[in-house]
């Protein structure tokens, strides 16, 4: 099989560290090799998931005041504080060269990460669906997306992590809650540095990771540089990623529009935790029916337009479990969607949770 191209591009600007894999994906042509990018940011930043609503998840004022840029990626998952303590391992592959099922794809993607950690004495293992754990503590998550013609899977080698700032940049209801988040991160997350008591050499770990990729995929890997076209596409994307329009909208393909509330119309919101992530449902209800619906959160739902399609499908439906369920089942039947850890009943539960909520003011 053709070699995998490795772009080991070291430290780049925070914006470039996100834009580069999108750029390589959008620039992918039939003869572009499957590519793995190893990259980290020179400076810290905050990155939010494709389906998230910025102001619900991130303390934007804090980030602005402390010069922390915020970018939205085109991959699902949650808001995360990132810095040079992580080396991102970004796969940009042709569709036929990865398993079609997302669960199997995550298993394949996670294996060389787990094997690399183990080589350095960190007893990591894959915790399905898409997490990596060390003795019950998480050492990083992973995400998948279709970007352009490419299948993208992203994750990182977790050398170190700033738990304090991670807790600080999240939007929380109270400082007490923030303390709890910090304590939880401390208790339930780990890094190579924490586990080993020292930070292993970045170059040695990266090299071992590529060795493990070769072992897992049974394909050679060849170090190279991005093409001028890939850089050009990346630069175009950087302009979009830096815009408020992109950052504040919820998911790239949807327009939620303004919501006006009249006497018999009300707006309600609920959050529901599914095994595959948090689902936030915000609905405008008109005489007991869903007049408008927005679904956001840190779940993964492919393809990219599927969330918008599900929102549309539920419009006009009476807010009762049976008709909502019927529509969701129809949605899964009609579209080739994948949502690891989120099933029909999770969407039904998320939408029906709205019923118990007081109208938003």
């Amino acid at each position: 099989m053709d070699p995998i191209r490795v772009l080991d591009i070291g430290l780049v600007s925070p914006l470039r560290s996100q834009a580069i894999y999108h750029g390589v994906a959008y620039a992918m042509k039939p003869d572009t090799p499957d590519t793995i990018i190893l990259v980290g940011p020179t400076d810290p930043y905050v990155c939010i998931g494709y389906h998230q609503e910025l102001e619900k998840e991130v303390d934007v004022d804090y980030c602005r005041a402390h010069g922390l840029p915020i970018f939205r990626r085109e991959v699902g998952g949650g808001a995360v504080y990132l810095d040079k303590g992580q080396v991102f391992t970004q796969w940009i592959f042709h569709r036929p060269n990865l398993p079609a099922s997302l669960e199997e794809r995550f298993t394949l993607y996670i294996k060389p990460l787990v094997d690399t950690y183990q080589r350095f004495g960190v007893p990591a293992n894959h915790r399905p669906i898409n997490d990596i754990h060390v003795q019950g503590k998480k050492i990083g998550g992973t995400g998948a997306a279709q970007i352009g013609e490419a299948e993208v899977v992203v994750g990182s080698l977790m050398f170190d992590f700033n738990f304090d700032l991670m807790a600080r940049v999240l939007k929380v209801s109270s400082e007490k809650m923030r303390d709890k988040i910090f304590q939880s991160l401390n208790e339930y997350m780990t890094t190579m540095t924490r586990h080993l008591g020292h930070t292993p050499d970045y170059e040695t770990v990266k090299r071992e990771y590529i060795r493990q990729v070769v072992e897992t995929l049974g394909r050679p890997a060849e170090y190279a540089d991005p093409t001028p076209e890939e850089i050009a596409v990346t630069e175009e994307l950087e302009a979009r990623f830096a815009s408020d329009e992109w950052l504040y909208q919820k998911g790239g393909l949807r327009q939620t529009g303004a919501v006006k509330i009249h006497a018999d119309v009300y707006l309600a919101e609920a959050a529901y935790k599914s095994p595959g992530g948090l689902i936030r449902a915000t609905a405008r209800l008109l005489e007991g029916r869903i007049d408008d619906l927005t679904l956001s959160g840190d779940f993964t739902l492919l393809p990219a337009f599927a969330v918008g399609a599900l929102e549309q499908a539920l419009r006009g439906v009476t807010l009762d479990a049976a008709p909502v369920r019927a529509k969701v089942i129809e949605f899964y039947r009609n579209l080739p969607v994948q949502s690891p850890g989120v099933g029909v009943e999770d969407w039904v539960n998320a939408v029906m949770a709205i019923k118990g909520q007081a109208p938003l003011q």
Partner: protein
Amino acid sequence: MAVYYGCDIPEDYYFDLDRDVWVRFEGDLAVLGMTDVAQTRGGKLVNLTFKKPGKVIAQGKNVVTVESAKWVGPFPMPFSGEVVETNEAGFKRDILLLNKDPYGAGWLVKVRPTHLDAEHGHLLTGAAAVEAYKKKIDELQVKCFRCVDESGN
């Protein structure tokens, strides 16, 4: 020994053309290595990671991970077998063994085949191997070269 564009093709060896692996049978064991074409394409090696003796590896699966500065590749089993011995010690003494002498001192592993009867049909030897390799060398447009000791040995 046939030579084509600088690439040696020993007629008394067996070859898995697709995997670029040579095989030399010694009794019920088989010695495996990378061909001249493969070592040329891989370039100057910087590291090899061997599977441990005793490990049984299926046909096509990796038995040694071979690395040059810009390339990391699997060395696949031409047939299923148990690793009996590796040349790890040889490469510890001289990492360029394979780039200097791919068919001799640069051997990689010695294995005991487990399903040879069913898995040897694709192996080529003698004139057939030379013809097939010539075609492959033409297709790849490769010209083989070796590393040599500075002393000229």
